[in-house]
């Protein structure tokens, strides 16, 4: 009986897990401030540990910007990302330099989004999660709560 209720609970929780990625309780302020001022403070589970490592090693030229944050903050952020990184198997390759939007998981999840939406001025860039996932800052990425009405499911 106990086992059964556990399975039922697990089954009920699964779809929620996929869309719910709030920042972990131990998220350092440096992560929110340094990473979250130019783009969403992305959930660390969206990239594998090795890809976060590569990203942190290249902050001097971070997609065209110097995102250096100083030795102490960078170490704190790198440790945090290593603790909460996603599974490389599930995410797939993120390309070089690593991009969350190039992981196989991201591509699969967004395969029904027509190309013109990515270029829409309301969206601008695949880095702009909040353009569509309006509550992304709280870790909500449900396909039922999309800001652009034409894309809602």
């Amino acid at each position, binding site marked *: 009986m106990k086992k059964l209720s556990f399975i039922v609970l697990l089954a009920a929780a699964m779809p929620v897990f996929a869309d719910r990625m709030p920042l972990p309780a131990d998220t350092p302020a440096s992560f929110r401030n340094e990473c979250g*001022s*130019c*783009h*969403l403070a992305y959930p660390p589970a969206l990239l594998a540990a090795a890809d976060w490592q590569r990203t942190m090693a290249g902050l001097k030229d971070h*997609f*065209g*910007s*110097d*995102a250096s944050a100083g030795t102490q903050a960078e170490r704190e952020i790198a440790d945090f990302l290593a603790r909460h990184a996603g599974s490389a198997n599930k995410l797939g390759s993120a390309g070089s330099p690593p991009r969350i939007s190039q992981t196989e998981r991201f591509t699969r999840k967004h395969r029904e989004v027509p190309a013109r939406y990515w270029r829409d001025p309301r*969206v*601008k*860039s695949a*880095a*702009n999660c*909040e*353009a569509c996932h309006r509550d992304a800052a709280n870790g909500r990425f449900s396909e039922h709560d999309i800001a652009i009405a034409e894309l809602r499911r």
Partner: protein
Amino acid sequence: MRPIPIILLLLLSSASQAETPQQIGQAYAAEAKVTASAQRGEAFFRQRFGQNDKMPGCTSCHTDNPLKAGEHAVTGKSIRPLAVSANADRFSDAAKVEKWFGRNCKEVVGRACSPGEKADFVAYMSEVR
């Protein structure tokens, strides 16, 4: 009796850490040995430097109106207003101000900004209403 002086000290030290835009602007002006000019600051804010295709000037992300929220030219992330009258958090932390001048001057102006340019910029953002 002992805890009281400690609490007082703590209060004092946290109070002295919060900086005002005036203090931050004055420190830059003193370093540059000039009097800051809000007018020059505004001209700088509106200048097109043309070093970066996506961000030719400050206004590419911060809009023409510093009282309004802006939007990162590449990522679309919203940016709170630069003007102190619209966003009281602006220019209240010298280290943060210096960090963002460092990043944005390099990226948009194509070089480090001078202390005089920083003093003017802070003066404009403190005064604009």
